[in-house]
């Protein structure tokens, strides 16, 4: 790639928008549509890069006024401490309201049971739907992108969920032009994905352009990890390492941030955002393929979870 090759004739047009400006403008439009049409929207915020970019876009969409949404974090109980710290600092800095739906609370109350493999990611759906119902959220922003996974490639920007939070891919509303239909019946809610048309590289390029701070675990650092199912996992009370698995110190970073039990690190020496972008541009693995065990459970793992109410 060279600088000249990156410039097309279009960009000589004084009215051309770069792809990042076009994506930003579209995402801001989506946030404002929701603010205009819904009573109780909420942004799902995990402290991962996609939700961080979502919040950044929401801040720009309503400036100089405050973001008219609160945040919801589904806490698996197995989060990276750096990410929880980032979450709390962000909430404080922008004067936001944070709701936390805790998987651990559900387990302690006996309403959810720990899985034999220790993975809590699939357990998030119940606390999420419970929080949506109890707080009567009618629009729930998620950072999901269609490039992440083939079931997500079928997802609408405005995705109607039934009273059980379920997604029926065969009964989706056609989505035409930029006319998003947010009508829903009581008990139903709409999942909204403002980053639908962004790719992993777009997200990173936007983070670089906007100089957005991220939790440090996205950049290469020395960490104790152990190997399981071809991934480097971080040790913790969640259940690793087990017998026969041994810790070693490696230089790693994370491409996605989720539950510690299923989010793997990748070997990397990319310790700056420029190095991260260079690494992603050259990578032969998708971010989920590289580091998410939960998507490998079956060919339709994501579709099946989404049908049950997962993002």
């Amino acid at each position, binding site marked *: *790639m*060279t*600088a000249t*090759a*990156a*410039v*097309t*004739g*279009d960009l000589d*047009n004084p009215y*051309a*928008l*770069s*792809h*990042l*400006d*076009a*994506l*930003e*403008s579209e995402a801001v*439009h989506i946030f*404002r549509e929701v*603010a205009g049409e819904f009573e109780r929207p909420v942004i799902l915020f995990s402290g991962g890069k996609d939700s961080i970019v979502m919040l950044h876009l929401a801040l*720009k969409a*309503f*400036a*100089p006024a405050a973001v008219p949404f609160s945040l919801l974090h589904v806490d698996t109980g197995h989060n990276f401490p750096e990410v929880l710290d980032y979450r709390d600092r962000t909430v404080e800095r922008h004067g936001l309201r944070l709701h936390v739906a805790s998987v651990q609370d559900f387990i302690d109350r006996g309403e959810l049971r720990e899985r034999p493999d220790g993975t809590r990611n699939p357990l998030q759906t119940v606390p999420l739907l419970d929080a949506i119902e109890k707080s009567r959220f009618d629009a729930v922003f998620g950072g999901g992108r*269609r*490039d992440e996974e*083939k*079931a997500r490639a*079928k997802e609408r920007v405005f995705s*109607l969920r039934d009273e059980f939070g379920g997604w029926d*891919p*065969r009964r*989706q509303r*056609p989505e*035409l*032009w*930029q*006319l998003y*239909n947010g*009508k*829903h019946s009581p008990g139903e809610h709409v999942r909204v994905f403002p980053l639908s*048309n962004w*790719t992993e590289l*777009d997200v990173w*390029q936007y983070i670089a*352009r906007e100089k957005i701070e991220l939790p440090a675990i996205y950049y290469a650092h020395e960490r104790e990890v152990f190997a399981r199912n071809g991934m480097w996992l971080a040790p913790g009370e969640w259940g690793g390492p087990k017998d026969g698995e041994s810790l070693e110190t490696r230089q790693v970073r994370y491409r996605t941030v989720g539950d510690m039990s299923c989010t793997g690190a990748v070997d990397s020496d990319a310790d700056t955002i*420029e190095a991260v972008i*260079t690494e992603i*541009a*050259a990578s*032969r693995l*998708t971010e989920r*393929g590289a580091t998410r065990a939960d998507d490998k459970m079956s*060919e*339709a793992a994501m*579709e*099946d979870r989404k049908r049950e109410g997962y993002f």
Partner: protein
Amino acid sequence: MSTNTDAIDVVDAGATSLLRFATAGSVDDGKSTLVGRLLHDSKSVLADQLEAVEHASRSRGQEAPDLALLTDGLRAEREQGITIDVAYRYFATPRRRFILADTPGHVQYTRNMVTGASTAELAVVLVDARNGVVEQTRRHAAVAALLRVPHVVLAVNKMDLVDYAEPVFAAIAEEFTTYAASLGVPEITAIPISALAGDNVVTPSATMDWYGGPTVLEHLETVAVVADPSDDPGRFPVQYVIRPQTAEHPDYRGYAGQIASGVLRVGDAVTVLPSGRTSTIEAIDALGQAVDVAWAPQSVTVRLSDDLDISRGDLIAPTAGAPGVSQDIEATVCHVADRPLTVGQRVLLKHTTRTVKAIVKDIPSRLTLDDLSQHPAPGELVANDIGRIVLRTAEPLALDAYADSRRTGSFLLIDPADGTTLTAGMAGTAFAEAAEEAAPAAAADDEGWDF
């Protein structure tokens, strides 16, 4: 200065443009293969995705990896080996980012092609070189024309099965171009390809040296998609009113929205519709930065020099060139819901940021896509029907003709009972006038395109 050329990506992060395009093709025209080939040869299929496809293909007893599995994301699609729903794919070259609306080709999914085409700046219509222009090709051309997709690519596929013969390609290209031009498609590019063998998809064909044009990817990379918005009248639908009411901004009152068409400048005299009140643009905030000028499709916040009563759903337009308002609408529509649309039905109409009550006064005609004939007074429209309708709205709307603006000439009809999206609407006449402008001779043919 870094010598790492990849690092330029970071510096030039924003310096690529974005092209949204849609593909259309019949079941066996090789569309999945073309999409697979575009993704694969542009190195957009990563190793783990390919591995998953190889694994799935093997477990189905197939010897070669089935590239269609890359795109058929739903369980039911993989089980049946067909594409049911629109999927969006993303890939990039150093020159451009692409958003591909991968639409199913079957006639019963006309609504899905309409969905994909509604946001597309370019449509690829696939034809099997052995069969030439068939009914389905005409349908796809008609939908592209109806939705006013600015660029159409005719990909004549399976050239390997007709000995890469130039006359075969030339005859199909000629027939299609004449037909599509008669419908008002402004720009048509015909490319002979073999998606299976890889000819002219990403790399130029070694066997078709008689073809001197671009490959499919090269055309996608270079086609000019940025029109000059200064030619279009300014249209700014108000999405949301921003009033911080803080110590720092006690009197800030901004109208947030995405410019639907044209250019807005500080100092412009503007009219607010439907009220008709006038003011002047005092400031434009482009996501945190004050600017003097902004244009479609930028999301901005506009402040006016007078305190007017303006809320979501109003339209701000330069006074010179403000649209008229009306409660009577004639439109061409594509019905997208499974339940029918009938004369006398009460609906909600969503146009830009405004949703109003409306009633279907008349359905003068329905288009039969099979033979492109026009049936008068059908009484109702069912799923995938394209027809003319007449609406009366409860409040006046500032609607442009779809021919003038895809953004301010489009609308949805919604079922007020449960919110179902019923119908996609395009205001004004659909084909006839455009066809007369584009190709007066061809428009004379009597195919029932008096729409």
